[in-house]
């Protein structure tokens, strides 16, 4: 999008500047904007399967909950997996990779549209993208955004969380998403490759483990990944003592109550070990004089930080393995990344925005 000079039918972009911060996640995409809009949408995209479905839905593209609700009538995509666009690693079916890339573009475009921008305002956007996103991924994200915004920049997700909270020095940020858990060591400069670690023990891993444990407990029950995800969003906890969690599972058509308390705790706790492993690695390779500062400055964000008691259990494990540890969780897990990206967009000098247009 370019700034138009005026004239017949053209819009002059001289009314103001709209900043958009976006957290593009595997499970959900959130935006925070300088016009007060804050929106979050599930990172799923659907296209009507055929003419009948298109006529019924009256749309060519459905995103978020609307796509979820109509998925039997759609070619349904969850374009991001393990923090990157599916198939972008060159493995697998190239046609499928192409479709996922397009779905990711449509997701980015839709998310920006949710900001309800005015036509006569400049739109500057910072997108918190997965740290390990390939150049193909980044290109797709930038190109999708540039169709709507005047200038766009990418930055790593954990960094934007830290920037948003003004925690730039001697902090370890743990961003637990659906596909990956990203760990990032902040030392007052842009995190380098050695400052960042990623593992796949994240939300999707919990879902898979919980699904397997539930099936083991109730072999004849019909359980879907979506059902498990909903249970996790409602009851996820790592605490030693929990209120019993009882769910209804259809067994040969009859709803049957199953207690999944232990399964939930076990599934959620699968994240703790790998997180502390990552923290240990990042701490042990840091200046020994400042290691204690890092240990006492761990910040957990992302959707996974909503797991009840996670901060306490990670802290306990850190004390056991590293002697000390202090963990805090972000106040707004869904918007922490987007808020940070918005702050970066706001602070970025005008000349930088101009030069990346």
């Amino acid at each position, binding site marked *: 999008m370019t700034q138009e000079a005026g004239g017949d039918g053209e819009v002059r972009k001289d009314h103001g500047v709209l900043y958009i911060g976006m957290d593009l996640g595997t499970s959900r995409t959130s935006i925070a904007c300088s016009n007060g809009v804050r929106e979050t949408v599930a990172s799923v995209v659907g296209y009507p399967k055929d003419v009948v479905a298109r006529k019924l839905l009256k749309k060519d593209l459905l995103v978020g909950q609307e796509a979820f609700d109509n998925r039997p009538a759609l070619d349904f995509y969850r374009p991001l997996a393990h923090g990157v666009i599916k198939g972008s690693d060159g493995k697998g079916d190239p046609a499928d990779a192409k479709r996922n890339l397009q779905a990711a573009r449509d997701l980015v475009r839709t998310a920006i549209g949710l900001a309800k921008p005015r036509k006569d305002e400049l739109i500057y956007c910072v997108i918190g993208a997965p740290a390990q996103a390939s150049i193909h991924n980044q290109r797709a994200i930038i190109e999708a955004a540039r169709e709507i915004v005047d200038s766009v920049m990418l930055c790593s997700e954990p960094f934007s969380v830290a920037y948003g909270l003004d925690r730039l020095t001697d902090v370890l940020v743990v961003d637990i998403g659906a596909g990956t858990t990203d760990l990032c060591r902040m030392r007052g400069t842009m995190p380098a490759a050695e400052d960042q670690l990623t593992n796949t023990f994240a939300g999707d891993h919990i879902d898979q483990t919980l699904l397997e444990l539930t099936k083991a407990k109730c072999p004849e029950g019909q359980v879907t990944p979506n059902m498990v995800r909903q249970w996790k969003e409602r009851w996820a906890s790592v605490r030693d003592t929990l209120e019993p969690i009882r769910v209804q599972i259809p067994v040969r058509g009859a709803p049957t109550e199953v207690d999944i308390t232990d399964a939930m705790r076990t599934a959620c706790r699968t994240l703790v070990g790998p997180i502390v492993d990552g923290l240990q690695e990042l701490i042990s390779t840091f200046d020994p004089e400042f290691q204690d500062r890092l240990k006492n400055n761990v910040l957990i964000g992302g959707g996974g930080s909503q797991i009840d008691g996670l901060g306490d259990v990670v802290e306990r494990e850190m004390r056991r393995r590293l002697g000390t540890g202090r963990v805090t969780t972000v106040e707004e897990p869904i918007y922490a990344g987007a808020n940070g990206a918005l702050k970066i967009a706001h602070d970025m000098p005008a000349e930088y925005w101009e030069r*990346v247009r």
Partner: protein
Amino acid sequence: MILGLANSLFRLFREHSDVVSVDKLKKDGVRSVTVLDWSRIDQLIAKAVDDALKKRGVELPPDALASVNQQAREAFARLLEQRDQWRDSAQTLEQQKSELEANLHRLVAELDTARSQLTREKTHRVTAADVAVSRAQMDSFAVRLKDGLVDLFKDAPAGGSPELARAAAELAERLLADEKARALTAAKQDQDARIDLLERRIAKLNGMLESSDRLVERLKSAKSIDPGIESEFREVQGLSAADTNAGAKRGLLEQIFKLNVELREAIGKDSPPAGGSAAEPR
């Protein structure tokens, strides 16, 4: 006065707010919400006034300052209301525009049909050859013929005469010609009525089209009303020099910028992405 204004602002804020259930907030991971009460808004307005005056080196006595603050609060309330009105107007105009576009298409189609019908009627005037005699007309003709013949033959001798037969034939022809003439006149009257109706319809449609055109012009002139939500900022901001971490942040922002420049250069060298046109997955 102050209480009235506070109530009015409170009402405006309520009207401008979205209702979100606690369950939805929990689901979105919100653990705490920021509450902005009236006294805080009041303080913010007072601070904004104070800052603006200080910036301009103006010092006011307390009474005058209180008065300026009051005016600022009232202006704030007016702006909120104005914004609401503008948004309503924009929505109404958008709705009108959609309706108008649909209406324009319908009008143009209807006008085309009426015009071609009129052309057809005018170029093909009804003639005797087009007139078909209806069953009712035939019945009426038969009755009159029968009456005429009865009248003709009432004093005739048995067996008749050639004159009588000729007179009967003439009677039948005359009556048939009368009937045809009557049918033709009726058909011509029908066609005239159709032409009249079509001309009046076309005139009405033309009138509607003209008023629609005027509305389109009005909508075009009201185009500056944007349904989007206005940003807080009129100009590009940038890092504040007063920021506690300004030095470190400036360096970080520069690094983000450089990484993005490098990324664009790499993208420029890279082959096109695997993704295709927007229509591909469909």
